[in-house]
Each structure stands twice: as C-alpha cells, then as structure tokens.
C-alpha cells in the first residue's frame, strides 16, 4: 500500500533509541490497508487528544463466547480500514517459547486475514492479534485451530492462565510452573471459551516469591512455588562472593527481614527455622544458596486492579501444598474456590471483593481450609466478631 496519511506528530515518535511502535504500524501499513487507516486514526488522536474506538461488540467464532474482542472505529467513513478492527487472543504456550517455524506460521496466517499488527504478548499473556474483520474470524480460526492453536479467554470467564519460565531456565523455581500452567489451561477449556462466571477469573503461576509473572498482584488465584526445608550453603561460593567484592554483612545479613542469618567474615549460617523464604539472599547469592527439602505451592486469592473500590493484593489461603502432575490436586481446590464465588457473587464482582463482602470464614469453610496464622499479617483489632452455634459448644 502506498502512504495514505501525513503523520507529523507520530513521526516524532520514530526518533530516539527505544524501538518505535509507529515504525511497526508503518511496516504493517505497507501491506495492509487496515494498518494504514490505523495510522491515520491514531495521528488524529494525537491531534485531538482523544480516542476513536467504540465499545466492543459481541463477535466471535461458532461455539465460543470469548477469545475475540469486537472493536469498531467511531469514524468508519473517515477511516474505513478500521471500521472493524477486532482483537483475536491466541493462547500462548507456557513460558512464551516458540520455534521459528510455528511463529512464522502464526504470522503468515495473520497477514492473510488481519492487519499484520500484534502484541507479543498482551497483559494477561495471550499472543494478541490486533485488527481483523467479522467475516475473517471463522476462516482464521479454522486455520489456527487446524495447526494446533486455540483462542484464549475473554469476558466473564476463566482467562488464559500464565506463568513464569520456571524450571526451563531458572534455578529458583520450586515447582514446574510451565507444566502446571499447561495442565490447568487444558482442564479449564470449557470455562475459558464459554463465559459463564460472574466476572473474569485469572490464574498465574510463579516458581518462587520473586514472582516474575506478578501473580500476587494480577491473578484472582496466585500460585507461588515455595519450599519447607533448609537453605543449603556452599561456603566456598560464599567466599568467592566476598572475594568478588560483595559486602555480605550489609547486602545479605543486614537486609534479611527476619535477621536469621549471620556471617563471621568467613562462613555464612542460616537459622532455617526463622527464615520466611523471602528470596532476598538466594537471589543475590545464587551460586551459594539453594532451597532444599519439600517443594510445593502457596495459594493466594483475590488480587486485582483498582476498578472499582480499590486494588487488592492476593491473600494467603493455603500456605503450603504439595502438588503432583497432572495436578488434579490444584484443579480440585480451584474448582471449589470458583464454585463458592460463582454461587455467591453478583455480576462484575471479582472473588477478592466477594470475600471482603461475605467474610473470609464462609469462604475458607466452603473450600475446606482451616484458619492458620500464616494467612494473616496480624489478628483483628476490633472486638466485633461473629460466633456460630458450633463454636459455642466447644
């Protein structure tokens, strides 16, 4: 396609060392009239300081209620190429790994049916294809699904689970995040593709408390790898860190939140019973320190962004649970969690909000988890607590 619009404002965003999204849209515009009109509409937004997209309409593929987000320009006559500009979410493989053959195939199909613009990846984790028409959806889906790719979640449904790269390339991973994510995604296909929940439900799996996938802040169900044994110390490696210039007292011992470490200028020791497994020392001295013993997951519930009454971080519900492939154990507890939420929530209420409204006790009892001090930062401060009949007879 030839150049269709002058874009003096966007051209300013092709300058400088950081890669430019404008250059990407222009590259796509050489082949796609849709991308060309996208460029024109965004330039107009830069001029008027407002967007020109309508609320998403309901579009999709046969038998699914999600995976495609309808998007229409509010200026279809001025920018006909983006009159329809729907988003398709392709469920990413765990860990965001691809062979060039597979990713090339994804690109080839997308060039045939869409704008040639993508997000690799979107916020939830899907490989996002930006900009296609309603009539392209069925053939596009047939091409992808016949080659082994399925759509991700959207709307009030199980959203595409996501994970860190875990044991594939990280010594800190206590659990096989990628396999857990893969298995859970396959167990919840119906719930992903046919929205039937009160609102969205997200699962993220992180291998340790460093949490590279932001599970604790971005998932209704945050699964985080942990351990119960000791931290093994390689004293030769400790000496090598000291020799390399690390101030072990200041950088490690003094920054330990539980002050469970000591260093005599030669050897580093850990009072393992007092370690809270925060990952600071391990992440800074990865050659010298290694978790050992039983490995498992912590399950935390409820995190979300601020809409509407404020953001939440996930709460510890199950401090430690051993999990085994094919992870029916995790599936079981997640299904109990969702069942309680599905029966209790009003439309557009996330599980964290519902627990706040209905109370933690009802939730814990429904999923069969006892109260333990690991769940809280501190006990309640007020004297207004509920008693049930069965509590009185104890």
């Amino acid at each position, binding site marked *: 396609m030839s150049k269709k619009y002058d874009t003096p404002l966007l051209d300013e965003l092709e300058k400088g060392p*950081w890669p430019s999204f404008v250059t990407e849209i222009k590259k796509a515009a050489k082949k796609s009239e849709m991308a060309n009109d996208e460029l024109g509409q965004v330039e107009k937004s830069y001029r008027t300081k407002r967007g020109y997209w309508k609320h*998403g309409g309901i579009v999709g593929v046969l038998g699914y209620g999600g995976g495609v987000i309808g998007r229409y320009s509010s200026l279809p006559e001025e920018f006909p190429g983006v009159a329809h500009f729907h988003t398709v979410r392709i469920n990413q493989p765990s860990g965001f790994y691809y062979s060039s053959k597979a990713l090339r195939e994804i690109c080839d199909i997308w060039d045939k049916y869409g704008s040639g613009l993508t*997000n690799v990846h979107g916020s939830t984790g899907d490989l996002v294809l930006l900009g296609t028409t309603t009539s392209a959806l069925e053939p596009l889906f047939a091409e992808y699904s016949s080659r082994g790719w399925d759509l991700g979640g959207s709307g009030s449904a199980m959203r595409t689970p996501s994970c860190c790269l875990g044991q594939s390339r*990280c010594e800190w991973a206590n659990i096989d995040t990628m396999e857990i994510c893969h298995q859970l995604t396959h167990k919840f*296909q119906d719930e992903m593709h046919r929205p039937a929940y009160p609102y969205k439900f997200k699962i993220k799996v992180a291998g340790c408390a460093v949490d590279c996938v932001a599970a604790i802040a971005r998932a209704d169900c945050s699964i985080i790898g942990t351990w119960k044994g000791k931290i093994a110390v390689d004293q030769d490696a400790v000496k090598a860190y000291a020799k390399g210039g690390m101030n072990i007292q200041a950088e490690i011992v003094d920054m330990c939140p539980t002050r469970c470490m000591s260093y005599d200028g030669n050897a580093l020791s850990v009072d393992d019973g007092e370690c809270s497994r925060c*990952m*600071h020392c391990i992440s800074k001295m990865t050659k010298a320190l290694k978790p050992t013993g039983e490995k498992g997951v912590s399950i935390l519930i409820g995190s979300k962004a601020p809409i509407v009454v404020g953001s939440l971080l996930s709460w510890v519900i199950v401090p430690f649970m051993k999990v085994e492939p094919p992870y029916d154990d995790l599936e079981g507890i997640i299904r109990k969690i969702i069942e309680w939420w599905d029966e209790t929530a009003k439309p557009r209420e996330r599980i964290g909000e519902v627990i706040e409204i209905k109370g933690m006790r009802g939730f814990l009892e429904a999923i069969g988890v006892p109260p333990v001090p690991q769940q809280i930062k501190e006990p309640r401060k007020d004297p207004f607590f509920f008693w049930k009949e069965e509590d009185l007879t104890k």
Partner: protein
Amino acid sequence: MAWLTDAEAKAIRKTDIGPPHFGQFLPPVLKKNYGKWKYHERIDGGTMVHVGESGDKVFTVRVASPRILSTETIREMLDIADKHCDGYIRFTTRNNVEFMTPDEKKVDGLKKDLKAKGFAIGGIGPGISNMVHTQGWIHCHSACTDASGMVKAIMDELFPYFDGSKTLPAKTRLAMACCVNMCGAVHCSDIAVVAVHRKVPEINHDLLKNMCEIPTTIASCPTRAISPDPAKKSVKINAEKCMYCGNCFTVCPPIDIHNPENDGVAIVVGGKIGSLRTGPKFSKLAIPFLYNETPRWPKVVDAIKNILDVYAKNARKHERLGEWIERVGWERFFSLTGIEFTHQHIDDFTFMRDTMRTSAAFKY
C-alpha cells in the same frame, strides 16, 4: 493467498484443543537441563548465562520490544533466531525478546546481527527492563491518553538504564495504564503512570434511554453518585460524589467521561511485586496530574527522570524505590524530589484511616 471457504473452514476447524505443549518449543539445551539449573550470572546489561548442574551453559541476549510488533519485524527476529539460536525464540513477561544459544562463541555474532537490524540490547540487571503498558489510542475505547507513545518518550530518555550504561540501586519496574481500569495492572510498580479524568461525565440522554439498562448503570457507581432521572428516562450524576472512575461509561457508553481538555495522567511510585526483604506493595500517589502533551509528554518524562535520579542518589544497594521511601519517610520523598504536596495526596476515598499518620514522630 486466498481465504478458506466456509466449507473448507468447517472441515478443518477444531475446538477446545488448548495451547500446544511448550516442550516442542524449548531449545534442546533447556530441555536437557530442565529443572536442573544451578545458577545464573549477568554478563552485561543485555546478556546473561545460566549454568546447569551438568555444566551445560545457555547464553541469553535480551532485546527491547515496543510490544506492538508487525509480522515483518517478528520475521526479522526469527531470521536471527534461525541463524544463531537453532530456530528458537522466547518472549518475557515484560514483552522483551530473548535469543538463546548454548555456544559462547556465537554470542558476539548474534549481538552483531541484532544491532545491525536495529534491535536494542539490554534489560538485564539493576536497571529498567521494559515498561509494561496498555493499548491506549491504538486500540481501546476507554483510553484517556496514549500508552505506546508515552512509553516510547520515557524509554528514549531512560535508555542508559536499559542498555546497562547506567545502573540503579535495584531493578526498577515501570508501567503505564491509559485509564484507571489498569489492564496492565500497574498498581504495584516502582514508578507507574496512570491516566485519569478530572471532570464529571456528560450524559447524552437521547442515546442513553435506548442503549443502557438504568439499574445496571446506577449499580455501576461505587460512590452512589448516579440516580434515576425519570423525566428524561435517563440518569443524573451528583457531581460532589463522582470521582471520575469511568465505570459508568464502561457499562453505558452515552455517559461520556472523555474530556480532552481536562484528561491527563498521574504518577504513582513505590510499588513492588516480589516478597524479597519487604512484602509486595501498592504504588502510591506522587504527582496527581500532568496534562496530555502529545506527541512526547515532556513534563511526564522529566517528572519520572527526576524521581529516578533522586532514588539513584539516595537509596542503598538492593533497596527498591518503595523500600527507600519507607526508610526515609514520605515527607523526605517530597522534600528531596521537590514534588508539591496537595489535597489530592491525602486519601479521602476508602483508605484514609489506614493512611493518615498516627504518630508524633516525623521529619521536616
């Protein structure tokens, strides 16, 4: 290439197959050492090596991505992956791209080809990796600023913290959300930009009565500012209660919250995700409002640069921005950065009782 016909599509389509197993996309060295990695080391701002218990190594070179990628650019990346990385590639949770090879001798050639194609290498270690962000004017109905453009302007300025030529006391996570829905969940970042409205939405009553369900619209308001307006078969908004969240606009488009003259961005700081040292934290308000200055938001860029410079100069090694602020106190954060403290900084929505100072000890 011709589109599939309806009949062809029906014949081959499959449903509920889920994503392909990642095993087929793992480079052989990762497959062989899966679950048996011993340690990793940062080599420079854009390169690291992971070493397995077997002694095997894998070298990773990371490059920046603007998140919006054309298929043409993806193919350029894949050509390099084919030449140097046995045809494998990976993306990070923060949208960067990783090229891996078990062969140390290939690293220089890989970097040379990446640079020749214009890819920016960096994002590893105590600096800035990439700025997680949302769709903005590129693709979202709810955006009250653009995301990609602001991120581009900010990262151009902070580029030395990406490529490793400058470092920070600890890794610093930046994020940008183009409205308070925060699709990028920017609420736990060291520094984040969130676009905000400042005016009560305007109602198109003629459209509303045909398009919106009135009880749902009323229920969408968290401050109960919306009530029925029976005469107009519409709703009215109590301006004193509205805090411009835009949730009503999401359920009822004729309640238009957009206001180009008055929309802009706030800057929040001090959040983190990891449990290292101190628990995960929400980001808190530093600057309540800056205007949308397209195309490069110079005041937003300057404000972030200032906060980063003050943090870099004053924090201790390994201390995240929020941990530094907790140590020195918010009053010190405002005095050192020179950021003006306003009524907007005091939480008068839901969390005042948790955020007011309840101690007689403080600094000047």
